[in-house]
C-alpha cells in the first residue's frame, strides 16, 4: 500500500474518531462533566443501525438519522435524570457514575445481542474502491470522510454564525460570566449534550463496517475518544479535529509499518502531548 493510501485510511479513521469524540469534548469544556458513558451512546447508535437493517431491512443510509436521534434522545433521558445531579460533584463521582452506566450498557447489549460481532451488509455503491490518480480509495472511507467534513463545516458555521453558537462559545469560555449575561447555560448544555451524543450515535453506526460492533465497543472506543479529547483540548472543535486526525493517522500508520508496537504508539503520542501541553494542543486550561 502506498503511503497515500495509508495516510488516507488513517485520516478516514481519524474522522470516525472525530465524530465519536466531538460531543464529549464540548460537554467537557462547557460543564466540566467527565462523561465516560459517551461511547455507550455511540454503541446505541450502532445497534440501532444493525437492528433496522437486519430485522426490518431498512437501507443503510436511512438508518443513520435514526441512529443519531436515538442516541440523542437516550442521552437527554440520562442527562435529565442522573447527570444533572452531579454537575457540581467531584471528578471522581462523575467518573464512577458514568463508568457504572457504561458497565450496565455493555451488559444490556450482551443480553440482547450476544457478544458476537454484528454483521452489516453495505449497499453496493459503498463497497469496493474508487481509483483516483492511480491510487485506490475505499468507497466507504471516502463516504465517511465526506460526511465528516460536511458535519464539521456545518458545526463550525453554526458555532460562528448562529445565536445558539454564540451562546455555546460563551458558555465554554466562561460559564459564570455567561450565566451572568442571562444565558440559560443549563438549557444550552442539554441541547449541546444531545447533539454531541447524537453525533456519537452516528459515529457508532458508521464505525461498524470499519471496526465492527460488539458490546465491548463502549469501552474500547472510550479510550480512543478520551485520548482524542485530552490531546485536542477541551471544548475545541478545531482541537478535536486535529487530534482525531493525528491519532487516526498515527494508529493506522503505526499498525501498518510497525505492527509489533500495537497500540503503544498512540498512548505514547498522548503522553508526549500532555507532557508538553497539559491542557492539550488547543486547550486553554
Amino acid at each position: 500500500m502506498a503511503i497515500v493510501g495509508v495516510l488516507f485510511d488513517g485520516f478516514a479513521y481519524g474522522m470516525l474518531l472525530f465524530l465519536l469524540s466531538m460531543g464529549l469534548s464540548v460537554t467537557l469544556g462547557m460543564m466540566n462533566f467527565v462523561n465516560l458513558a459517551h461511547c455507550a451512546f455511540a454503541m446505541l447508535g450502532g445497534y440501532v443501525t444493525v437492528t433496522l437493517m437486519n430485522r426490518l431491512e431498512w437501507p443503510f443510509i436511512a438508518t443513520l438519522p435514526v441512529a443519531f436521534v436515538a442516541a440523542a434522545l437516550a442521552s437527554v433521558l440520562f442527562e435529565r435524570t442522573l447527570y444533572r445531579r452531579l454537575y457540581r460533584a467531584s471528578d471522581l463521582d462523575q467518573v464512577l457514575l458514568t463508568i457504572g452506566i457504561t458497565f450496565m450498557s455493555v451488559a444490556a447489549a450482551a443480553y440482547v445481542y450476544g457478544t458476537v460481532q454484528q454483521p452489516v451488509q453495505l449497499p453496493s455503491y459503498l463497497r469496493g474502491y474508487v481509483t483516483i490518480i492511480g491510487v485506490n480509495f475505499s468507497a466507504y472511507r471516502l463516504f465517511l470522510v465526506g460526511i465528516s467534513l460536511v458535519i464539521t463545516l456545518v458545526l463550525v458555521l453554526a458555532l460562528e454564525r448562529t445565536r445558539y453558537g454564540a451562546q455555546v462559545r460563551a458558555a465554554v469560555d466562561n460559564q459564570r460570566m455567561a450565566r451572568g449575561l442571562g444565558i440559560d447555560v443549563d438549557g444550552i448544555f442539554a441541547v449541546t449534550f444531545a447533539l454531541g451524543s447524537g453525533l456519537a450515535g452516528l459515529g457508532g453506526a458508521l464505525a461498524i463496517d470499519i471496526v465492527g460492533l460488539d458490546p465491548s465497543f463502549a469501552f474500547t472506543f472510550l479510550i480512543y475518544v478520551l485520548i482524542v479529547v485530552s490531546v485536542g483540548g477541551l471544548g475545541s472543535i478545531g482541537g478535536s479535529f486535529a487530534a482525531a486526525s493525528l491519532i487516526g493517522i498515527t494508529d493506522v500508520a503505526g499498525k501498518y509499518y510497525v505492527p509489533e508496537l500495537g497500540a503503544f504508539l498512540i498512548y505514547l503520542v498522548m503522553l508526549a502531548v500532555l507532557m508538553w501541553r497539559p491542557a492539550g494542543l488547543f486547550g486553554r486550561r
Partner: protein
Amino acid sequence: MSTDTMALDARRHIARQIRWRPAEVIFWLATLLPFVLFPTHLVLASQIAITALFALSLDLILGYAGIVSLGHAAFFGLGAYTAGLLSKHGWGEPLSGLVLSALVAGIVGFAASLVIARFRHLALIMITLGMGLLLHEAANSASWLTGGVDGLQGVKMWQVLGQFRFDLYGYTAYSYALAVLFLSFLLVRRIVHSPFGLALRGIRENSVRMTAIGASARAHVRKVYTISAALAGVAGALLTQTTSTVSLETLGFQRSAEVLVMLVLGGAGRLYGGLVGAIIFMSARDQFSGITPLYWYFWIGTLLVAVVLFLPNGILGGLARLRWRRR
C-alpha cells in the same frame, strides 16, 4: 489557667482520634475466623486479603491525597511479574520476593509520580489511564519475558520462612497474606496519622492553599505515590506467590476499575473502606461466580450508580452518618 487546660484538651482531642478503637480490634480478630468457620474457603480468603491490600494502597493516594487513578493495576502487575520472574529464574524465596517487588513497583511509581504530580482533573485521569494501558501493551508484546496472553508459567515458590509450604487448601496462603496485610495496614495507619498524613489530607482538600502555607504539594504527592505503588506491588507479588501464576490480567484496566469500585463502595479515605469493600466485592463475586461475567458487570454498574447517588461516602461513611444521627 483556662487557656492551658484548653490547650491540653486540644492535645488530648488529637490523640483520641488516633487511638485504636474497639471496633478495629474486633475487625482484626474477625479476620482469623475463616480458619475456624470456613476452612474450605481459605483460598478465597487469601484472595480477599490480597485485594484488600491493593485497595488499601489505592486509598492512600485516592482517599487521602485525592489523586484519582485509573491505572493503579500497573503497579500491582509490576509486583506480580517481578515476583513471578524471580521465581521462574530460580529465586523462589517469598519474603525477599515481596521486598524486591515492592522495590521495583516503588521505583517505577516514583518515576511516574514525577509526571503525575504535575497534573489534575481530566489530564490526571488520562495520564494514569494511559500509563496503565501502556504497561499492559508492553507486557503483552514482550511475550518472551512475560509469556504474553498465556501468562507466566513455571512459577515455583519456596516455603515461607523455610517452614510453611503453600498448600492446596490455602492455609499457608491465607496466613501469609493476612500477616502481610496486617503489617502493611499498620504502616498505612501510621502514615495516615502522621504530620505527612495530615498534609495529604490538606492536598486533597485544597492544594492551592497548601502552597500558600508554604507546602510543596508536589513533593508530598511524589512521596505518597511511591509508597502507594510499592504497596500495590506487594499485593501483586502476594497474588503471584499464592497462586503460582501471573496473567496479563493483573495489569489490566479492569483490575484498576474494580479496585476503584471496591474502595468507593467501602468508603475512600477511611482506612477500612478498601478492606470492607474488598470483602464484600470478592465474596459477592464468589457467590455469583455461576452467572456470566457480563451480567455480573451489570450489577457492578448498578452498584456504582447507586453508591454515587445514595451513599457518597461508601458503606463506612453511611454507617458513620447513621451513628452520628442517632446521638
